[in-house]
C-alpha cells in the first residue's frame, strides 16, 4: 500500500462516520469521500501533504457531499443541506481551514452498521468496509467467501439503512443488550484482520489493531458488560505481544518462539483487571473464555511451561458455546501440546472436510505429523499450507518451516 492509500485508510472511518451522520446516506457519504480522496491524490503530490490530513479530507468531502445533495434536488435534502452547510461554516471559521479535530461519530456509525434490522453478516461486512476502510476482497477473505457476495451484502445493507429509517444514533440503554453482540463481533474481526492482513507489507497493521482496541475500550466505558470486558481483555492480551511478533530479521515470529520480555506488561495488567471484573458477573461467554486462554499464555514463562491442560479445558468449554471447526482445530493443538499428540492428530484429521481450504489447518497437520515422525506427510501438508496463503510473510515463514522439516526428515 502506498503512502496516500495508507493515509486514506487511516482517516476514512472517522471522516465517513461524520459524512454519514450528516447525509444519513452511507452510499452518498462514501462517494463524497471517494471524490475527496481523488482530489487529494491529484493535489497532494504537487502541493504537499497537509499537516492535518483528516481535517482536509473531511472538509473537501463535506463540500462534495453538499454538491451531491444539491444535484439530487430532492426536498428531503433541504434540511440536511441546511445543517451540513451550517457545520461547514463553523468549521471554516477556525483559524486555518484544517486545524480542527474531525468529530468522532464512529460509535454512532458502528451501532448503525450493527442494527438488528440488518442481518449479522451484513452488519459485520458493512462495519469493516465503512469504519475500517477495508477493501471488499479483504472482508471476503476474513469471511471465507467471495468478493461478489460481500459486495452485494454491503450494497443491500446501505440501501436498507437509507430506506428503512435506521437512525444514526447510539441505542438507548434498554436496547443495548440486543445490539451489543454484533458490535463486539465486529470489533473482534477488525482486530483479527489487523494481524493477519494479507496485502499489507507488514503482518501487523498497527492502526487497525489500535482502532479495534480503542473501540473496545470505549465500549468498556459505555457498557461494562462481562463480554465487553472479555473482548477488551482478549484484544489487549493480543496487542501486548505486538512487538515480539516480528523483529528486524524475522517478519513473523509465532507465539512459541516469541521473546516474552517484549510483551507489554502494562497491557497485560489491564487485561487481567478486565478479566477479574468480568468474572464477577459469573456469566461465561466466548470472549471471556478466549481472554482466559490468552491470560494463561501471558502468565507462562515459556511455551513449554504453559498450562496446556487448562487451555485444553477452556477450548472444550469454548467449543461447547460456539461449535466451529476452527475452534476444534485449536482444541486439537492444545491437546497435542498437553501431551496427547496421537489422539490430537486423529481429532484434527476428522476436520479435513470442513477446513481443507484453511491454511492453518494444513500447517497444524504438518506440525503434528512432524512430531509423530510422519515426515513425508508433514512435507505434503506444509506444501498445501504454502499453496493456500496469500500473505507473502506467512508464505516465507512456512517455506522456511518446510526447509526445516526436510532437514529433519
Amino acid at each position, binding site marked *: 500500500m502506498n503512502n496516500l492509500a495508507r493515509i486514506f485508510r487511516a482517516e476514512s472511518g472517522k471522516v465517513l462516520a461524520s459524512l454519514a451522520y450528516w447525509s444519513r446516506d452511507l452510499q452518498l457519504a462514501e462517494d463524497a469521500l471517494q471524490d475527496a480522496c481523488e482530489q487529494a491524490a491529484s493535489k497532494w503530490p504537487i502541493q504537499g501533504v497537509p499537516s492535518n490530513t483528516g481535517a482536509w479530507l473531511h472538509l473537501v468531502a463535506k463540500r462534495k457531499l453538499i454538491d451531491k445533495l444539491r444535484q439530487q434536488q430532492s426536498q428531503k435534502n433541504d434540511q440536511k443541506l441546511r445543517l451540513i452547510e451550517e457545520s461547514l461554516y463553523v468549521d471554516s471559521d477556525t483559524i486555518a481551514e484544517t486545524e480542527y479535530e474531525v468529530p468522532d461519530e464512529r460509535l454512532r456509525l458502528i451501532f448503525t452498521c450493527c*442494527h438488528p434490522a440488518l442481518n449479522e453478516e451484513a452488519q459485520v461486512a458493512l462495519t469493516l468496509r465503512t469504519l475500517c476502510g477495508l477493501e471488499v476482497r479483504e472482508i471476503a477473505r476474513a469471511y471465507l467467501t467471495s468478493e461478489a457476495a460481500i459486495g452485494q451484502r454491503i450494497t443491500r445493507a446501505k440501501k436498507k439503512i437509507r430506506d428503512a429509517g435506521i437512525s444514526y444514533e447510539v441505542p438507548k440503554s434498554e436496547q443495548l443488550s440486543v445490539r451489543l453482540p454484533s458490535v463486539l463481533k465486529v470489533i473482534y474481526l477488525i482486530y483479527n484482520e489487523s494481524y493477519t492482513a494479507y496485502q499489507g507489507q507488514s503482518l501487523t497493521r498497527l492502526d487497525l489493531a489500535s482502532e479495534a482496541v480503542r473501540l473496545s475500550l470505549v465500549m468498556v466505558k459505555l457498557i461494562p458488560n462481562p463480554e465487553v470486558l472479555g473482548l477488551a481483555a482478549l484484544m489487549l492480551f493480543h496487542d501486548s505481544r505486538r512487538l515480539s511478533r516480528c523483529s528486524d530479521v524475522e517478519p513473523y515470529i509465532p507465539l512459541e518462539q516469541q521473546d516474552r520480555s517484549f510483551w507489554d506488561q502494562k497491557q497485560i495488567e489491564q487485561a487481567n483487571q478486565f478479566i477479574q471484573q468480568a468474572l464477577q458477573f459469573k456469566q461465561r461467554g466466548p470472549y471471556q473464555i478466549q481472554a482466559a486462554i490468552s491470560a494463561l499464555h501471558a502468565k507462562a514463562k515459556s511455551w513449554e511451561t504453559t498450562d496446556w491442560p487448562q487451555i485444553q479445558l477452556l477450548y472444550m468449554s469454548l467449543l461447547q458455546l460456539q461449535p466451529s471447526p476452527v475452534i476444534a482445530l485449536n482444541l486439537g493443538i492444545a491437546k497435542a501440546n498437553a501431551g496427547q499428540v496421537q489422539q490430537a492428530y486423529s481429532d484434527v484429521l476428522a476436520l479435513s472436510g470442513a477446513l481443507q481450504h484453511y491454511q492453518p489447518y494444513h500447517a497444524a497437520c504438518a506440525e503434528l505429523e512432524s512430531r509423530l515422525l510422519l515426515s513425508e506427510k508433514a512435507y505434503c501438508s506444509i506444501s498445501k499450507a504454502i499453496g493456500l496463503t496469500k500473505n507473502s510473510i506467512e508464505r516465507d515463514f512456512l517455506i522456511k518451516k518446510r526447509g526445516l522439516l526436510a532437514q529433519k526428515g
Partner: protein
Amino acid sequence: MQFLALIYAGEDQDDVDMETLIAQYQVFEEQLDTAGIMHGGNALEPISTATSVRVRNGQSKVIDGPFAETKEQLGGYYLLECKDLDEALEWAAKIPSARYGTIEVRPVMVFDQ
C-alpha cells in the same frame, strides 16, 4: 417519517378473550393518541371475508380468498409518524398482538414532487 405497522397473526392465536384484547388495544391506542403519532389504523374483518382480484389481458378475475394462504394473516394495521425505525419498532412491540403474532414494520415511500 411514516411507518406502517402490519399486524400478522393466526386468527385463532389470541392468548386472551376478545373483550380483553379489545380493551388492551384501547389502552394501546390511548398511548398512541397521547404521543400524537397515530395517523390511522384499523382492524380488518377475518380472512374468510377476503376477496382478491387481478386483471390479466384486460380481463378481471375475482377470486374467493386471500392473496396468499399463510398461517399468520394480516389482521390490521397502524400508520405511525416516528423519528426513526427504532421508535417505530418500539411502538410496534407494544401492539397487543405482538405477543402471539408478528408485526411487520415498513416505511412509507416518499415521492418527490
